[in-house]
């Protein structure tokens, strides 16, 4: 029996079931396994429900001379065809900049861009009709790579710079100096459930859209904008997504808008459900980056000055690129103090799909950059990269100010890394690996320990707010709603734990309900790992309001002081009396006490000057570290991850089982990003890897045969977060960086560890073999 199941079976008597810090199972687990969890495509369809196919651009960059949809309009089963001319409101679904047309009408800017929609009685008829649409393009020169965009100064947003100290002078004076270019690939989200929206028309201007989205409020705004109606006409609902990972933050607005327009035009329900290929071609991915660095360091490997140029592929529009590229800059330090630093950021406009949020939101790319620099320094000095990492770690009392002038107040990286190093037996294994490699001509082993420090909060400060709604019914059952969305991460479960804890009732008395813009308005995306931090606090506030009312009521009714009303597990002690929650609730109702409340939370302490790129954008940091060991076949470049050791800080965990799941899953997703997940574009601008047959996310056997993962038991948030827990969604993704660095270590062995392999990501077998040959040639002379 593992820790995982033991923990589940341990349920201490005398406390409520499913309160905070317990290993409470995901609320939907029994439904997931029996096929009864309802996703949007599983909702029963209303009679006459239309299926919608979205017609896409076949060119990366072209003027649309004409779109002729007449044949499609007459085709079998077709109810309507929509083009840009048919949009009642504004032809835009962008989150910020107004640069994402729902239907391109004059210009297409990537292969896969939405141009029109066909609604029919079946998806087959809709697709067949769409193939009858004739588009006359006038092709324009296309920019398909970051390099081309840089050369042509093609940007979606102006370049940005973050600066502290004097990097130029520091570089000049440094004893050692290295420069190199790093390529970091993108990543498709590959949520198992593709994008989907089901719109049901209502009376007047109303419409209800079931949208698979992490950001219902933004979808609501966009649907209203497209329909030309007020926000209050549009209700967005989402019970659960089949995965999100950031891919369903800004993009669902397109599909919801199209479904809503069809529904309002025809008076029938309308569904847009992308098949896998269309989903992968139409929707954005993690930004790929080119990073140039110039680093100066002393003989111990301490970085004295560093300059980064980070150039990312935004795609055809801004989407969330501004904040993503900023976050890459914020994490160019990872866990290291960079005294003299300049980071330049270019947000390149290309004729490829607009890239978007993906777990880590630019942070992981920043982290890969600096970790590569550390490894290059280590290879140059002939030292263990871990030694270089330690030399450069942020201090706790000095050397603790980030390049954006935020003081790191909660640094635990030293103790956490030391603990993992011992747990994983790093030093001995590293020595063994060196010995093994001496005697193994073809198979080489590699090992790396990499840390992560990740800033928690939306860097767009106003987004750091959340709302919740709690009703208590007269039988003592509780209805919980909040602005966060469930995509598998267990947010609903965690927030229910908080509410159960507040009322001291068993978790099964708390009904988790679908996120709905009609219940909690003006929400932020469930993103930036903030879901439990913010919605947990908001729900706690709502529940506490009711609890305080009940306390006051009980004190008054039984003539005791408020502090003599004690909330005990499953009961309330009022002076000498004890009563159950339902009893108290019923009495309160009869005494006309309100049993419903909203709750609200705004993250404190944060402030940020976006112009200067200075301030405290983050409430706190999450920390972790991982050791990965790999074996590489130097004849083919094939490799296997053999062992993983993870120690991760989630503060005082709200739910260790769920947090463990996030940590493991994020690590594997991070490893996938940096190893087998390669996005390849055809020279014509079409995505070549648009299905799982060609785009390879990790499979079961890619998990290391030995996998040790632990939540850090000393973890406690220095800030007053919900029960002193820490955000967990994104930070552990960067633990996967250790796999890339372990591969680099294995490759470096063929050059006696003196030549830095410059292994780019994703490190496919091809890239690994190329690196092996490069190092061998350099070593030979």
């Amino acid at each position, binding site marked *: 029996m*593992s820790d*995982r*199941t033991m923990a*589940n079976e341990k349920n201490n008597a005398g406390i409520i079931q499913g309160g905070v810090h317990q290993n409470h*199972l*995901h609320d*939907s*687990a029994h439904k*997931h*396994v*029996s*096929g*009864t969890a309802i996703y949007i*495509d*599983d909702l029963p369809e209303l009679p006459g429900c239309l299926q919608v196919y979205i017609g896409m651009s076949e060119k990366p960059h072209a003027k649309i001379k004409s779109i002729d949809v007449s044949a499609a309009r007459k085709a079998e089963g077709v109810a309507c065809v929509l083009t840009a001319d048919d949009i009642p409101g504004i032809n835009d679904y962008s989150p910020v900049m107004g640069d994402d047309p729902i239907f391109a009408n004059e210009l297409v800017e990537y292969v896969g861009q939405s141009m029109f929609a066909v609604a029919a009685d079946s998806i087959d008829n809709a*697709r067949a009709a769409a193939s009858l649409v004739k588009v006359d393009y006038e092709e324009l020169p296309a920019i398909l790579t970051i390099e081309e965009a840089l050369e042509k100064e093609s940007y979606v947003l102006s370049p940005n710079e973050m600066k502290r100290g004097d990097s130029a002078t520091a570089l000049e004076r440094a004893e050692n100096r290295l420069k190199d270019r790093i390529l970091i690939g993108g990543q498709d989200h590959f949520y*198992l*459930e593709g994008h989907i929206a089901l719109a049901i028309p209502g009376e007047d201007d109303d419409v209800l859209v079931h949208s698979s989205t992490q950001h219902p409020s933004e979808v609501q705004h966009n649907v209203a904008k497209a329909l030309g109606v007020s926000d209050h006409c549009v209700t967005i609902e989402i019970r*659960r997504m*089949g*995965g999100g*990972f950031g891919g369903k933050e800004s993009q669902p607005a397109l599909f919801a808008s199209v479904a809503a327009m069809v529904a309002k035009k025809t008076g029938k329900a309308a569904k847009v459900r992308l098949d*896998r*290929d269309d989903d992968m071609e139409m929707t954005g991915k993690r930004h790929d980056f080119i990073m140039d660095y110039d680093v100066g360091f002393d003989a111990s490997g301490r970085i004295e000055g560093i300059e980064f140029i980070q150039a990312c592929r935004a795609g055809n529009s801004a989407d969330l690129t501004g904040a993503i590229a900023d976050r890459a800059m914020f994490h160019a330090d990872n866990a290291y103090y960079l005294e003299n630093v300049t980071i330049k950021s270019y947000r390149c406009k290309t004729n490829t799909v607009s890239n978007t949020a993906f777990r880590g939101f630019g942070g992981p790319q920043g982290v890969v950059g600096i970790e590569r620099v550390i490894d290059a320094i280590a290879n140059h000095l002939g030292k263990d990269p871990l030694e270089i990492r330690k030399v450069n770690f942020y201090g706790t009392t000095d050397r603790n100010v980030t390049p954006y002038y935020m003081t790191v107040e909660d640094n635990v990286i030293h103790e956490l890394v030391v603990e993992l190093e011992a747990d994983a037996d790093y030093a001995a294994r590293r020595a063994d690996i060196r010995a093994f490699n001496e005697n*193994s001509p*073809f198979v080489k082993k590699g090992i790396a320990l990499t840390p992560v420090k990740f800033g928690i909060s939306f860097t767009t400060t106003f987004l750091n707010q959340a709302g919740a709604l709690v009703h208590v019914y007269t039988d003592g059952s509780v209805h919980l709603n909040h602005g966060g969305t469930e995509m*598998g*991460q*267990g947010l609903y479960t965690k927030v229910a734990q908080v509410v159960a804890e507040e009322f001291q009732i068993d978790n099964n008395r708390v009904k988790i309900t679908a996120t709905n813009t009609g219940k909690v308005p003006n929400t932020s995306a469930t993103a930036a790992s903030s879901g439990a931090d913010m919605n947990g606090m908001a729900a706690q506030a709502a529940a506490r309001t009711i609890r305080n009312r009940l306390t006051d009521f009980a004190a008054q009714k039984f003539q005791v002081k408020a502090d003599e009303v004690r909330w005990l597990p499953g009961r309330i002690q009022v002076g000498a009396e004890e009563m159950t929650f339902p009893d108290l609730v019923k009495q309160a109702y009869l005494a006309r006490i309100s049993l419903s409340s909203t709750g609200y939370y705004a993250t404190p302490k944060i402030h940020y000057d976006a112009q200067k790129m200075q301030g405290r954008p983050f409430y706190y940091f999450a920390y972790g570290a991982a050791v990965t060991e790999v074996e*590489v*076949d130097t*004849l*083919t470049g*094939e*490799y*296997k991850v053999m062992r993983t050791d993870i120690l991760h800080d989630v503060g005082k965990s709200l739910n260790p089982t769920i947090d463990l*799941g996030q940590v*493991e*899953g*994020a690590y*594997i*997703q991070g490893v996938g990003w940096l190893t*087998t997940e390669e996005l*390849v574009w*055809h020279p014509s601008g079409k995505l070549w*890897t648009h*299905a*799982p*047959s*060609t785009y*390879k*996310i990790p*499979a*079961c056997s890619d*998990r290391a045969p030995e996998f040790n*993962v632990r939540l850090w038991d000393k973890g406690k948030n220095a800030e007053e977060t919900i029960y002193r827990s820490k955000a967990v969604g994104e930070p552990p993704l960067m633990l996967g960086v250790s796999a890339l660095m372990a591969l680099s270590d294995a490759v470096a062995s063929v050059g006696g560890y003196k030549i830095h392999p410059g292994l780019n990501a994703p490190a*496919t*077998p*091809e890239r690994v*073999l190329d690196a092996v040959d490069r190092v061998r040639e350099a070593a030979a002379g």
Partner: protein
Amino acid sequence: MSEGIRFVFRGEVREIDKIDPTLSVLRWLREVEGASGTKEGCAEGDCGACTVVLGELVDGSMQYRAVNACIQFMPTLHGKQLITVEDLASPDGALHPVQKAMVETSGSQCGFCTPGFVMSMFAMKVSEGRPSRDRINDVLAGNLCRCTGYGPIIEASEKMYDAGPETAFLEEEKRVVALLEGLSSDAMVETADKGRRYFAPARVDDLARVYTDNPDAVIVAGATDVGLWVTKMHKDLGTVIYLGRVKELKEMRVASGYLEIGAGVSYTDAWDEIKKHYPDFGELIRRIGSTQVRNAGTIGGNVANGSPIGDTPPALIAAGARLVLRKGEERREIDLESFFIDYGKQDRGIGEFVEMVKLPLPKAGSKFRSYKISKRFDQDISAACGAFMADIEKGQVKDIRICFGGMAGTPARAKHTEAALIGKTWDEETVKTAMAEMVKDYNPLTDMRASEAYRAKVARNLLYKFFVETSQVGEKVNTRVVGDRELAHV
């Protein structure tokens, strides 16, 4: 002849007289039956979210196999039992041990892939004993999870066995066996809908006849490729002839120095037998598609569809396999190598079908290796797949056959390279010389799987690897990191 299809579903025989021959089981479940537990993740048999289990009477006992419902055509269910995630919990709602284990280990996060995992695990639990980690990897290779990192699912795959045997399920099985026995027949199954026709003969002579009569029909065995013509290319296949019921094509036997593999034998059924004679070929089969794909797909189909990147042809050609083709009553036998004429062009006449693949048994002392190079170990299509068969006598290369997939428009021999080796001493110098010759044999392409340069380089290096693995004496040097490493030294 019997009109329409009959299969067991939800404990009863379901009769459908007219059904679209290329309607997928997944679409039927979700759109016709309103059974939404089974999910669509990719519609190409790569993610496993749609996994269902098919029960089939084989030699009098039930055999349960996981398949991808998204690319399984409805009429192929005829005579089988269809089991979906909704069937597992008991009528009182109590979860099945597979489901219970998945709940207890937190094996689901978003839950969308979960029904598919549950069905793959269920097929394993009713078919075999407690698995090793390697076996779990194989069974779950065709189920992708983007949330968990697989740890809890692996744990559940072990833990579910704690519940003991499938008593309730086996009790119900007796009733199902009786129902399936009632459906068993040698008659041809026919159905048609939406202007498309479907024939599923049970005897090879009927197959020969129906194909002669309908030479424009598409022949389908496992539909692991043809299924995608429908779900991905949205092609109308017109008339479909299904091989999966043809008794003679499901046979496999050793006769006069050959392992004869009927064109309807699935990878799963051929695996053990091939592994016995060619261990490394067995390892290659382990990596073809996934369990779901191997349960449906056939070696005959892998050959007949003529793909330049099919994984078995290089191994078969290197081993000197032959092919039996049949048209009407006429049969001819050719070297498999000559079947592949050019990209998209095979030596197969109108109305002619692949009846059998004949794999010669290895000669004593001959050396065989096959290597598959792909981005991901499991369920990936080869960037290059190389197979080597050599007779080395007293340190001299008496004969060598080298065949690669992924390096040309067809699976192709490396004739110049072979020529540089035959008759020479099997040593490093000879091999290095031969490696340089390979440039004359192949002119590979750059695509989404690999660059031209990598393909060329890795193909050369694989020859070197073959040399190292077959010439080692004394303490063996490790040459492999993926797959069964011991096979380097067999």
